């Protein structure tokens, strides 16, 4: 599904990311592990197609991202990638359902209100469709962020530290939810985390070392 080879990224002359090789098949579920500062977020951005690495090749969903430019890359992102950011970043001025419709619109997909409602219902958010993000609890907001990431049925679902600051029960819930949502649309799942609690739940691990 994706294949990374000899990916390096420098920032101000310092190497912040080094991946010699990492392959994943469609539908697999992976953890990206490593201590803080090991480049997890940077690698996530590379996988999401929003950061062009300094060197190496990243082939995602059959496309070499290095060869893609401008609007094509934007369209590719919208169609293939779903991302749940650590700090959610929902659109505060839009209702929950409009956040999902925005995602469909920006991806260039048809705006399918029924699909958006179906996703919300699947995440136990059916009654929150017209709420504004600031009216939600953190757990609800996180589920909205997941809903926004999967509403376009992405091929690759990314999540950045989704379980940090959660108690054990919630941690297990969120993890299960991400796994279920990824499986529901057949997406490959990559979760970047330094949370040791999740290790046992997902067998595929890619471990980043501390930056050189």
């Amino acid at each position, binding site marked *: 599904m994706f294949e990374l080879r000899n990916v390096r990224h420098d920032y101000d002359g310092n190497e912040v990311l080094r991946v010699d090789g990492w392959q994943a098949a469609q539908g697999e579920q992976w953890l990206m592990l490593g201590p803080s500062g090991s480049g997890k*977020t*940077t690698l996530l*951005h590379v996988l*999401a197609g*929003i*950061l062009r690495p300094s060197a190496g090749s990243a082939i995602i969903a059959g496309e070499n991202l290095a060869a893609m430019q*401008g*609007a094509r890359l*934007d*369209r590719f*992102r*919208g*169609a293939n*990638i779903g*991302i749940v*950011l650590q*700090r959610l*970043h929902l*659109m*505060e*001025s*839009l209702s929950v359902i*409009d956040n999902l*419709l*925005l*995602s*469909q*619109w*920006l*991806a*260039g997909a048809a*705006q399918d209100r029924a699909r958006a409602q179906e996703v919300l219902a699947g995440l136990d958010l059916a009654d929150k469709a017209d709420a504004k993000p600031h009216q939600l609890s953190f757990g609800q907001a996180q589920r909205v962020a997941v809903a*926004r990431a999967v509403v376009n049925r992405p091929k690759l679902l990314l999540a950045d530290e989704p379980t940090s600051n959660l108690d054990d029960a919630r941690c297990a819930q969120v993890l299960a939810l991400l796994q279920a949502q990824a499986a529901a649309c057949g997406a490959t799942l990559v979760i970047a985390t330094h949370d040791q609690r999740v290790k046992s739940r997902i067998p595929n691990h890619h471990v980043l070392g501390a930056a050189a």
Partner: protein
Amino acid sequence: MNIAALSFSYLKARPLNTALNVLLLALGVATIVLLLLATHQLEDRMRRDAQGIDLVVGAKGSPMQIILSAIYHLDVPTGNIPWKQALEISKHRAVKRMIPLALGDSYRGFRIAGTTPDYLQHYGARFAGGRAWQKPLEAVIGAEVAARTGHGLGTKFHGVHGLGDGGHAHEDHPYEVVGILERSGTVLDRLIVTSYQSVWVVHAEHHDIKDVSDIEKQLGDDEKEFTALLLQYATPLAVAMLPRYINNNTGMQAASPAYETARLFSIIGVGVDVLRAFALVLIFSAGLSVFIALYNAMNERRYDLAVMRTLGARPATLMGLLLFEGLLLALIGAALGLALGHGFAEILGHVLRAAQQVEISGRVFVIEELWVVGLALGVGVLAALIPAWRAYRTDIAATLARG
């Protein structure tokens, strides 16, 4: 979801900021619109009142005063002129038509103008009821006079000496209303028109005449007076010689309506220019405020913008979003400004109407208003340009890595 809905949601999310920007812009637009409406209608009105009158002759004095008193009926006359001299002028070969005016009295603030039926004809007056006068002390009243005084056909009233209330009343010679004019949008609306003989009759007591049954005969030729003469030239060449002839060879003063009105406009124009500059300052400070608001919004929204890019938005979409927001603000501001401007004009019109001055309405549109709307939209887009450009250049990964 689309750009408009998204822009609107952002404006709604910051109601105070949005209201301030809209209000600033609206006030600027409203001020200019009000100026446009007022000056446009004023000039239009003054031009219509002076139309077809090439020269006004009055007693020696300020030409401006002669025009203001004899055409617009806004000022007191400079004095009277002898009937014999008026007769001479009317026979001059350069004069095609002469309409005499005998002024001096008023009724509840409305001028009583003694003249000939030519005067009504000149303004194309039409009767809403009744007829023109046939003998002295029969009067025709304008639409505004009828509306304000409540006088109908057959009612009688006493003229008062001078132009305001409180002058000496002419109790012996009441006027009878025999005709009411349709509203014409000219000076006739605010006039009480009668024959010039009526004015002579009312003032006969000054000449110790008690019997006024045939005033033309009873007054000596030297006792007959007019206040002003409205002249129409027989030939374009008259403009070069008639005013000079009158000023040099008679005791009278000639005044050109075209020249004096232009002079009046240029005097008013200075004040209008100052107000217009003030309004432009308002509009541009509104532009600045919109700029600052959008620029700050850019900072508050940098994550939103970056997230939108991860969701597949093209840079041009983000740019369009901010430009549209500026445009939307300007559009709401301009619409509100137009409404306010017309509302103010209507209120001003009511105030001025109560003071029996010029008439201004808010229910008129002038083509220049489109320019004002264009200007406001331009300012909105201009203010959004730099924020839009920054949105276009958003570095997604760097922004998201920070938060």
